[in-house]
């Protein structure tokens, strides 16, 4: 079965290609085929997992050679699959959550005329993401890496008749490319210093890398990871990416694609282990982004953008964990998996809420929705508890491990990282609770369409309703995961043991603070966050329009001026440069050529005056020629 692992990728890819090529002819059944493909991919993946489980832990790293892909002399790259616990974890996450989201989308996109195309893109995404995680070399990983970027571009801009959405899609792709550039340079350096870009080759030789080279490669890989995972400083695209249909946000911009950066860092363990500085930077980036994202999430009234900030923040946790080295890898992946479930659940729940509210994403126009959307409320609540880390929900297990690990180490680092993780947990509790209360509790800030209230009522008219089964069912499944996964995966060795063949066996040293202290502190802070949010948004009335807010709030609303910074540092100078160059190309570069031509013509116009038509002047020219030649000769000879 392991040899057939390529089917995991091939099935959704073929389905996607088929749907795109057939065009309208497949409109009627396209969504079903796509969903089936996702499920089939999951089934194949599951069979592979079962077979790998049958292997002894040491044998579980399987390299499946497919074909010789780029045989270019010194650099020969094979297309092959790395089937090991790490990649299979992702395969399971991607195909399972992916399948659920396919199902959900059947309902969510019912009314969209281009639903078939949407599913084709979703399949394409799944296939690309699977390539990314199953690749056995950085080069092939890059194929998936850019492939998911493309799928993300297509799906963010799915409704690109809205120019803002098209711009958001482009922004996402371009910022991702900045990260990709890092990846390319990293591969170039690997080739230059190690002569290979395959995982096995790099892993084998990485210990021989000089520290500066390893650091450079590590930082460049981190740059790639930042782009894909929306980490500082390449985080600005994620909020805008919410322009895509909500299932897309759930699948790509919460559960799977954005976690690819974490995958990359864990996968590149051999590089990072040789580059402590790069590891430290990684941890710093993670710690910073987890706070940044959390702050942004607090400031947003748009439910999806708030969730996007939250995603950024949660991935910050993972990156922080990954940056801590082998001791954190397993927890990073653990959190990644649980996050995949509860965040997808939250997004899909948000999607249901939007669906019920005429596609409005403004939480200030929600409120009191619990009564009309009981299932959604329940699932959302579960996922909410999971993400804020309330025991025994999934997030508690995974996040708490990260917080504990963050406190491991020497010097200032454990205090800073641990502190950030702790504070982040509190803020997470606050903003998630805020979202939950603003949406489902308090007074309704909308009026029913059927009500007889006067037209001067500022509240929007809505007709909220529970979503159909095809949409609620996947959310329920995700919610079950959000409840149970943490506990299940930490049974016994759990996920740590499962991943050990990849992440290596590590002894877990004691944190600088005793574990119970950390645990208590976390829970107290989380409780405080929830309480604060309840006071603000559960008990009090939420104004329909946002109050001015503190400078911090205002900054958070504007993503801490990320767009302004990008604009001032890159976009506007770039536009100036472009305009200057376009002008210079015509005026200077081409001007030199046309100038030379014009000069020739001008000299012709001058010279033709000599040809004045008078025979006497012609004779003078002849004579002058002779005389001058003779005179010069005599001068020279004398």
């Amino acid at each position, binding site marked *: 079965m392991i040899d057939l692992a390529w089917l995991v990728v091939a099935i959704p890819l073929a389905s996607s290609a088929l749907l795109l090529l057939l065009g309208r002819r497949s409109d009627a059944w396209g969504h079903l085929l796509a969903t089936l493909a996702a499920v089939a991919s999951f089934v194949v993946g599951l069979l592979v997992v079962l077979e790998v489980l049958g292997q002894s832990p040491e044998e579980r790293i399987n390299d499946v050679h497919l074909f010789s892909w780029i045989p270019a002399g010194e650099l020969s790259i094979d297309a092959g699959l790395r089937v090991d616990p790490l990649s299979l974890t992702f395969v399971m996450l991607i195909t399972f959550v992916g399948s659920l989201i396919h199902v959900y989308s059947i309902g969510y996109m019912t009314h969209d005329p281009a639903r078939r195309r949407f599913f084709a893109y979703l399949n394409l995404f799944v296939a690309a993401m699977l390539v990314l995680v199953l690749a056995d070399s950085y080069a092939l990983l890059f194929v998936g890496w850019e492939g998911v970027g493309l799928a993300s571009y297509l799906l963010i801009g799915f409704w690109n008749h809205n120019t803002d959405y098209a711009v958001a899609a482009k922004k996402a792709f371009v910022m991702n490319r900045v990260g990709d550039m890092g990846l390319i340079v990293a591969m170039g350096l690997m080739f230059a210093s190690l002569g290979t870009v395959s995982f096995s080759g790099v892993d084998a030789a990485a210990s021989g890398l000089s520290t500066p080279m390893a650091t450079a490669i590590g930082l460049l890989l981190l740059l790639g990871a930042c782009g894909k995972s929306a980490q500082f400083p390449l985080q600005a695209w994620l909020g805008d990416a919410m322009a895509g249909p909500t299932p897309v946000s759930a699948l790509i911009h919460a559960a799977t694609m954005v976690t690819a950066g974490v995958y990359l860092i864990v996968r590149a363990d051999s590089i990072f282990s040789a580059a402590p500085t790069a590891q430290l930077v990684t941890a710093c980036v993670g710690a910073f982004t987890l706070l940044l994202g959390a702050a942004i999430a607090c400031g947003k009234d748009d439910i999806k953008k708030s969730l996007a900030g939250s995603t950024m923040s949660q991935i910050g946790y993972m990156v922080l964990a990954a940056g801590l080295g082998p001791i954190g890898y397993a927890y990073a992946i653990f959190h990644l998996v649980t996050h995949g479930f509860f965040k997808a659940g939250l997004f899909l729940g948000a999607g249901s809420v939007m669906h019920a509210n005429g596609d409005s994403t403004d939480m200030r126009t929600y409120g009191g929705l619990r009564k009309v959307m009981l299932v959604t409320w329940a699932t959302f609540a579960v996922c909410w508890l999971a993400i804020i880390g309330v025991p025994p929900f999934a997030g508690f297990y995974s996040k708490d491990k990260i917080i504990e690990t963050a406190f491991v180490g020497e010097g200032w680092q454990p205090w800073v990282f641990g502190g950030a993780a702790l504070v982040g947990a509190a803020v997470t509790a606050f903003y998630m609770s805020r979202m939950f209360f603003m949406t489902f509790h308090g007074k309704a800030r909308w009026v029913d369409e059927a009500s007889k209230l006067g037209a001067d009522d500022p509240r929007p008219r809505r007709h909220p309703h529970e979503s159909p089964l095809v949409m609620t069912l996947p959310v329920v499944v995700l919610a079950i995961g959000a409840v149970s996964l943490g506990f299940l995966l930490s049974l016994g060795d759990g996920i740590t043991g499962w991943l050990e063949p990849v992440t290596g066996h590590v002894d877990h040293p004691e944190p600088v603070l005793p574990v119970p202290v950390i645990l208590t502190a976390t829970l107290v802070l989380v409780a405080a966050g929830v309480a604060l949010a309840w006071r603000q948004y559960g008990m009090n009335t939420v104004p329909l329009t946002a109050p001015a807010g503190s400078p911090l709030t205002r900054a958070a609303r504007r993503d801490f001026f990320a767009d302004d910074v990008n604009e001032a540092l890159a976009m506007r100078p770039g536009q100036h440069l472009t305009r200057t160059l376009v002008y210079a190309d015509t005026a200077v570069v081409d001007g030199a050529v046309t100038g030379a031509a014009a000069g020739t013509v001008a000299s012709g116009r001058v010279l033709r005056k000599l040809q004045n038509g008078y025979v006497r002047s012609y004779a003078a020219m002849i004579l002058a*020629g002779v005389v001058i030649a003779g005179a010069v000769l005599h001068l020279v000879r004398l």
Partner: protein
Amino acid sequence: MTTFQPPVIDWAALTPVLVIVGAGVLGVLVAAFAPAARRRSIQVVVALLAPLAALGAVAWRWSEVVGGGESTFVAGQLAEDGFGLAAQMILLVIALVGFAVLASRLPGGEDAFTPQGASAPGSAYEEAARKAGLEQTEVYPLALFSLAGMLVFTMANDLLVLFVALEVLSLPLYVLTALARRRRVLSQEAALKYFLLGAFSSAIFLFGVALLFGYSASLTYADIGTAATASVGMDGMAVVGLLMVLTGLLFKVGAVPFHAWVPDVYQGAPTPVTGFMAAATKTAAFAAIARLLYVAAPGFAWDVEPALWVVAIASMLVGTVLAIVQTDIKRTLAYSSVAHAGFALVAIVSLPEGGPDALLFYLLAYSFATVGAFAVVTLVRERDDAGNVTGEATHLSQWAGLGRRSPVLAAAMALFLLSFAGIPLTAGFLGKFTAFVAAADGGAWPLVAVAVLASIAAAFFYVRVIVLMFFTRPEESDEPQRQRAQAVAPGALTRVALVVCAAGTLVLGVWPTPVLDLLAQAARFVV
């Protein structure tokens, strides 16, 4: 009492010249005595058969001479060698196609020449002559005499012969220039300019002859060459003399600064005459220059070469730059011929070993394109309101859209222009290439560099004519008020001439091996 020693004259070597001179004399007799109605046809037959016969004679002499039979005769005043014969061959080919164009008539029956040269333009007399259908058939013997002068030019191994041949080739051309049927005022003006400047430069030439004679006590090249290596005194005088002689010859090829007549005369002369003269005079004069330089002047090379460099560079640049700003097709071609004089000079100025054959190939390539291009010009005509064909449409803007109306003719013109521009697979390219190789071999790198620069600029105006013909719809023309040109159907003779020129241009570009081999074994000077 001394016994009479008859001069040794190798009459056989003179056969080609004698054939042409004889034909010329015959032509004069025909003009005098043949009935008017049949005069023209007889003249045409004579004028076309004579070069053909002479070509046969050259071929015969070739088989006799090349590869060991070279000699000088008449006391070393004439030379019969491969170079001269090859040049004669080229001249006779030019004459054949040139005369064919010269003899052509429009569908209406009018030829290129005034019906009565003695009549004043616009006079009643002229009108009467036109109505009477008179024809100035003397043009054929005149052209033949000129051709005879050119043939001798290539053999001249002595300054006296050179001078006489120079005059023999020039005087008929002055007359021919004046005989245009239309725009006669321009034609006469051109003749006057040509004549006055020609005579002026002949005088300079002659003074140079006198100085060289004073220096070496002889007029034959061989003696001058020997004197140059032997004697020590007075070589300043000799160099000035040589320069003045070269001036007379460079005047004929139209090299800067002795070129000023070229555009005026080429424009004013009857177009078939322009074509013939541009090709043949240049070929003959270059042959004479080459022989002079290679045989008489090696001893002065050190002194003369810089001057020739300047002339070559100036010719290429001035010719090119001025051609760019022209608006008349004949003037454009005239300036282009000035530039080509410069290119041809490049091949020989540093007296490289391969220079003479490169020069001859260049001239052959240039001649095909020149005769062909001017033949096309004769066919592109204006029409009056009644639709009758009138004068040539020489303003460039009138050529707009010609390619759509007469694609084949325009394609032929394009071919000639591309050959001028030196695009590969045309004769012009190989001409340039061999010339550059020769020059580079002789170390004249700067000349090659300038030649390349000039070629780049020159491409512009050749290409521009193609733009007008093929890419410009008539309504896009810059000067819409001008009358549009219409191509008339070429007569049989012109058609043949065009086909020969086009085929020559193509064949020499694609498969030049036979010609190159021929020239390689031929281009030796007998001393």
